[in-house]
């Protein structure tokens, strides 16, 4: 394996225990192993439960996000998302109880209560989310009761998010913690009545680079209004109106299917999956939504919008397709929804996908992904950099789509890179997003810089 990997291991390029997590479409029999914890000692690209909860809730713009723990957990997630706001910027600040040794020994509940009191005095936020971290879970601070008391004291929502990192090696558990916190926030208090409307909620849309705004514009044009997005550019007050929607769209399935299910159980609101990444996905999603409303006017306007936007997008995509056809791509992202969206867009560009992997995919999601991919494609769960490196070389990849931890691995191997991380500030949704994505792929896959890479020693260049 030495020819493939810089890792100097002898016989094995990857760990024996991980072989069930790596499949090759067409060759491998059986199911991918994906829900297990990462191996101790592996260089995993996965994050933690707290991170999962934080990325889901952080876009609630006017809430204070208070991290109860030592400083690092808050410092590293400060302004962690590319979610844009049309109003408050409160969510972009970093609040921490900054636990010290004495808080670990004597408990941090008092400090947490004091922090909440000071924050309310300073900012009077409509809600405070209190995240528990690893150490809080271990010393057993009762954040539920601290939040409850603070809530009564200040008459605002102070909501505990039970996101101790060690609960699982998988961010999905954090998504669930965030979902429970959201449900707590939006469930009407006794005596409160939420009027039903013809508006819809848009779940799993985080307004990265203003993506929610793009979809909102499309929907407005066809005559449909967004009640509130979960959680992109949302406010506490808007979220509380969530039960009034007549439909829930679900985009990021990993984080929001559970919420959609709960909303259906509690308020009877139906839900459907949508995907606004890529021209084809956007077209399909708009039609699905129009069908739900069953209004001929809406349908007519939808078709007109699709026709107009497609006619703008088609020639641009065509131009890039000519340049990109036959390029080879690898995808390694957080969730399966994102992977599926990228696969479809790359196919529109005639790019061959030779590797697809995720940090948190579920079995049925991998089956779905597998259905979209051609024979010989490697499918990998919870990949570590050594594995990625091996396949990037072995499969002669031209560019990779992934997050921050993969970017420089790709570069070092002479492979282009497209950022699909959750801190991205570029809008990739809708028809205009499809154009931007194509441009980005072209920029990196066809950069002149790669010509200098093949022989970078001075001697080679001089010859």
């Amino acid at each position, binding site marked *: 394996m030495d020819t493939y990997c810089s890792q100097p291991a002898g016989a094995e390029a990857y760990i024996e225990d991980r072989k069930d997590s790596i499949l090759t479409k067409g060759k491998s029999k059986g199911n991918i192993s994906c829900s297990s914890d990462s191996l101790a*000692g592996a260089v995993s690209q996965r994050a933690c439960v707290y991170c999962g909860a934080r990325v889901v809730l952080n876009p609630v713009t006017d809430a204070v996000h208070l991290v109860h723990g*030592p400083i690092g957990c808050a410092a590293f997630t400060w302004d962690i998302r590319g979610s844009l706001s049309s109003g408050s910027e409160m969510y972009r600040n970093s609040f921490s109880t900054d636990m010290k040794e004495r808080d670990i020994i004597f408990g941090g509940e008092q400090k947490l209560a004091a922090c909440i009191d000071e924050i309310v005095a300073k*900012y009077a936020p409509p809600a405070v989310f209190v995240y528990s*971290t690893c150490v809080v879970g271990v010393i057993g601070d009762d954040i539920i009761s601290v939040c409850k008391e603070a809530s009564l004291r200040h008459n605002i929502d102070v909501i505990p998010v039970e996101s101790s990192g*060690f609960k699982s090696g998988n961010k999905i558990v954090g998504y669930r913690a965030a979902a429970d916190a959201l449900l707590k926030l939006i469930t009407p208090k006794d005596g409160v009545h939420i009027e039903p409307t013809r508006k819809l909620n848009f779940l799993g849309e985080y307004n990265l680079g203003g993506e929610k705004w793009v979809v909102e514009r499309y929907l407005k044009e066809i005559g449909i209004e967004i009640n509130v997005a979960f959680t992109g550019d949302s406010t506490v007050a808007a979220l509380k109106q969530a039960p009034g929607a007549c439909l829930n769209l679900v985009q990021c399935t990993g984080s929001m299917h559970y919420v959609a299910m709960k909303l259906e159980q509690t308020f009877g609101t139906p839900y459907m999956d949508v995907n606004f990444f890529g021209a084809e996905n956007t077209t399909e999603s708009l039609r699905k939504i129009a069908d739900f409303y069953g209004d001929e006017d809406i349908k007519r306007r939808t078709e007109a919008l699709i026709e107009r936007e497609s006619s703008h997008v088609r020639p641009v995509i065509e131009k890039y397709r000519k340049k990109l056809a036959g390029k080879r791509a690898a995808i390694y992202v957080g969730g399966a929804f994102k992977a599926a969206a990228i696969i479809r867009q790359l196919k529109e560009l005639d790019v061959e996908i030779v590797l697809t992997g995720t940090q948190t995919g579920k079995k049925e999601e991998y089956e779905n992904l597998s259905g979209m991919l051609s024979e010989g494609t490697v499918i990998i769960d919870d990949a570590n950099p050594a594995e990625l490196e091996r396949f990037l070389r072995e499969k002669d990849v031209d560019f990779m789509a992934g997050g921050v931890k993969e970017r420089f691995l790709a570069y070092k191997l002479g492979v282009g890179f497209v950022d699909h991380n959750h801190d991205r500030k570029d809008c990739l949704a809708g028809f205009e997003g499809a154009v931007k994505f194509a441009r980005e792929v072209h920029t990196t896959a066809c950069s002149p810089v790669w010509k200098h890479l093949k022989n970078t020693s001075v001697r080679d260049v001089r010859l």
Partner: protein
Amino acid sequence: MLECIPTRKVEHTAGKINPAKTCQPIGAMYAALGIHGCLPHSHGSQGCCAYHRMGLTRHFRDQILASSSSFTEGASVFGGAANLKTSIKNVFKIYNPEIMAVHTTCLSETIGDDIPTIIKQSEVPEGKVVIHANTPSYQGSHITGFSNMCKAMVSYLAESDGTAKKERVNILPGFVNPGDMREIKRIVRELGIDLTMFPDTSDVVDSPLTDKYEMYPEGGATVAEIRDSGNSKLTLALGAWSSEAAGALLQEKCSVPCVPLKIPVGLKATDDLIMALKDGFGMKVPRSMTIERGQVVDTLIDTHFHYQGKKVAVAGDPDIVVPLTEFLLTMGMIPAYVMTGTPGSRFETEIRHMLEQSGIKDCVVRAEGDLFELHKWIMENPVDLLIGTTHCKYIARAEDVPLVRVGFPIFDRAVHYLMPIVGYRGCLRLIEMISNALLERRDRDCTDEDYELIL
């Protein structure tokens, strides 16, 4: 981001808002990368390791590898011994480093894992080493973690063979960029002195792009070099917070005399480094150094009217902020706020002493502060220039103050980690950055008739 600061008077005593520090393990991870062929290992749950790799990756724009014990609920109830033993086995089997540097997290510290005992009970392949540092996140800051890992290098590795000491200096460079480490090495070599620098992250976190990718790049102090540091004649520990503890331990363990110095940021601190080497080795300072120094003084004269008398706020890690403030005073600037997120009253004492000597009053000095406070001060009483990390950009925008980026982390600018701020060349770069930030500001703000070709 303006709502960060409420306009009315408010108490800020509990917790942190917009922290100016982060936690110990990332410092330990960075230090460990300065050993050749080292895989840092985070003993705790995966998130910490992912965050620290992400933080370092964003700053250095390079792939940062580290493994994790991948704690889940079982480990936090029954202890992490099994996870660490499995990790050690797996790391050497899969990634085959020369050395594995384990650091703890708040989780493994709180449950009380006895790391040295676990390491002793583990199977470590022959010729390979496992070292460890305790780095509880609820004490100190990332600088403390860096210091603790440097200490671990000495306590696990450094040896003295009892024979005469070698004509060589150990340099503990402190928490600085690889470009700074490279520059310090150049200066010492220019003086004709043999050296061992550890940790040394140059050629590791700024590795070049060639046609070959290496998991363990060429750089870093080798285990053998760190072992042999016990036989050097002298240690220079640069930075009280990040290097002094390791230097003192080396003195105690191997009888290598240790001279504590500032990180050589600015004219005086660089002079002090060169004089300490001159005193230790008795060589003549080469003319090339005199020329470099002369260029700094010449440039200070050429540019003094750009910045002299301007009010400046400085925030960052103590070992950088202390000598930087000293240099700002040399430049004739007026520090109005000097702040670090790292705890320790020594910071306030040292800065106050410097200010007193320069006759500067009304400067707010604060250790263990946060950027909420700094913002509040600047809002109440503005400055002309802000020097700090990327995180200061919110304040810079809200208060419309030019920002010169110095320190860790810098996520939003390119190439900085390659360019030194230490030594005489570093002085020139600081003067350039500060002058040009102020000149650009003047060009932006001035009226048409004051818009000049020559400034």
